[in-house]
């Protein structure tokens, strides 16, 4: 039985080494990818029943229900396109004003719809898999949105799938800006998919219940100007220097089925700063503004108009942000 113990020790040391290497470096990415091929059938198989159920429900739906839905969607489409018209006018106006201010144009983000796989991961962490991987151009750190706001970001990419973390994961933080007054802070996850915490606000800071939080884009991961959440509770305790501020995520974190992967084109930001519109910038130097980079390249995916100007580190931004970002 001695050899059993020796083998156990050796393998345990191997496991520990793996963990340390995996924790400190990203050198084990190929191993993870190789293993993901083993895991992929499991994920697909587990996801199959819900998928089949949805398919059955849509294909066996009644004609009447479909007609009604069609009617409703047409009406919504009409509303949406009317709104879009106004938005286009606003956007043109915004562009003109920005040209007057010599600041850069907000680039249109490229998006791709991804489906969440109904696969349970570690129940203690807020993670999930989506059915898009490196073959679709997904990269680590990519932002995920839904129709209402920011959902999370990609932390691991396999060829066919990728792993994402919700903004409410206890290890996740997202830089936000309060639309009402431009206050910048950080929203931290709590591990509960209905709550975000804003731990870095002092008792004297100007924050109220109902304040809308937008992503500020400061972290460089999330595009600026998308809704993150709304403050639902503010507690100021005299004995403490920081207030307890709780926000509710804007995105339907535990209900949605489909999410949007966003390419912001910010990766090119450092190299291309001031590139396209350099002449105007040089003529009248404005050091405070950071350039938004080149327009994103479109490749076979839908185009979402960005709802807000890139106003990352700009103190005069809040009002404009509030106008364009769908504030109340």
């Amino acid at each position: 039985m001695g050899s059993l113990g020796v083998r156990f020790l050796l393998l345990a040391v191997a496991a520990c080494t793996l963990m340390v290497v995996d924790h400190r470096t990203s050198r084990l990415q190929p191993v993870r990818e190789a293993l993901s091929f083993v895991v992929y059938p499991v994920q697909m198989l587990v996801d199959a029943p819900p998928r089949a159920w949805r398919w059955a429900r849509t294909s066996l739906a009644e004609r009447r229900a479909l007609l009604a839905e069609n009617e409703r969607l047409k009406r919504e489409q009409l509303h949406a396109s009317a709104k879009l018209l106004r938005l286009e006018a606003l956007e043109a106006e915004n562009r003109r004003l920005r040209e007057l201010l010599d600041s850069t144009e907000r680039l249109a983000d490229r998006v791709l719809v991804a489906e969440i796989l109904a696969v349970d991961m570690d129940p203690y962490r807020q993670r999930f898999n989506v059915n898009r991987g490196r073959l679709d151009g997904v990269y680590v750190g990519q932002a995920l949105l839904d129709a209402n706001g920011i959902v999370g970001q990609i932390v691991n990419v396999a060829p066919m799938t990728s792993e994402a973390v919700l903004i409410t994961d206890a290890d996740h933080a997202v830089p936000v800006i309060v639309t009402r007054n431009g206050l910048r802070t950080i929203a931290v996850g709590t591990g509960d998919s209905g709550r975000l915490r804003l731990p870095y606000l002092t008792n004297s800071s100007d924050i109220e219940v109902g304040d809308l939080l937008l992503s500020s884009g400061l972290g460089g991961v999330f595009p600026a100007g998308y809704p993150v959440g709304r403050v639902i509770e503010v507690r100021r305790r005299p004995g403490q220097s920081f207030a307890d501020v709780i926000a509710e995520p804007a995105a339907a974190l535990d209900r949605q089925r489909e999410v949007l992967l966003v390419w912001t084109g910010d990766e090119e930001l450092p190299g291309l700063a001031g590139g396209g519109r350099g002449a105007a910038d040089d003529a009248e130097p404005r050091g405070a503004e950071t350039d938004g980079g080149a327009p994103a390249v479109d490749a076979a995916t839908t185009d979402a108009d960005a709802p807000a100007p890139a106003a990352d580190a700009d103190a005069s931004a809040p009002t404009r942000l509030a106008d364009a970002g769908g504030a109340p």
Partner: protein
Amino acid sequence: MLSLCAAFLLAALPLPQSIVAFKPDWVALTLIYWTLTAPPAFGLLSALLIGLVLDTLTGALLGQHALGLLLLVYVCSRFRLRLRAFPVVQSTMVVAALLAANEFLLLWIDGIAGRTVPIGERWLPIASGTLLWLLVWSTFDRGREHAPARL
């Protein structure tokens, strides 16, 4: 082997929010069972590999579940004969201790790696796993009492 695949599927199966905390560690239970009943089925190396697959599935650190399963299989195969001779209650207690050790190891590694995890609900999978073991072992044990134990 089939049961192992089933265990992986069960581990990945999404459960309603209300009972997800009770989800037992299917893979660990399957490994314990087969190590006790059919020893050559899983060696230490296969425990390591299975653990790595489980790590990928759950998005944990590579090696985290592997270490836990290694420990389980090692203890089970080291004391296999003794564990098999135990009456149901006693073996259930040992399995509970093993599951708890596994869970503690996972929690500990999470702590070292700086990942924030809630601690309060961690004992629920141990309880449900132990209960499951009690059911399975008492059912299958009855049949085996008549057959001579393999040495």
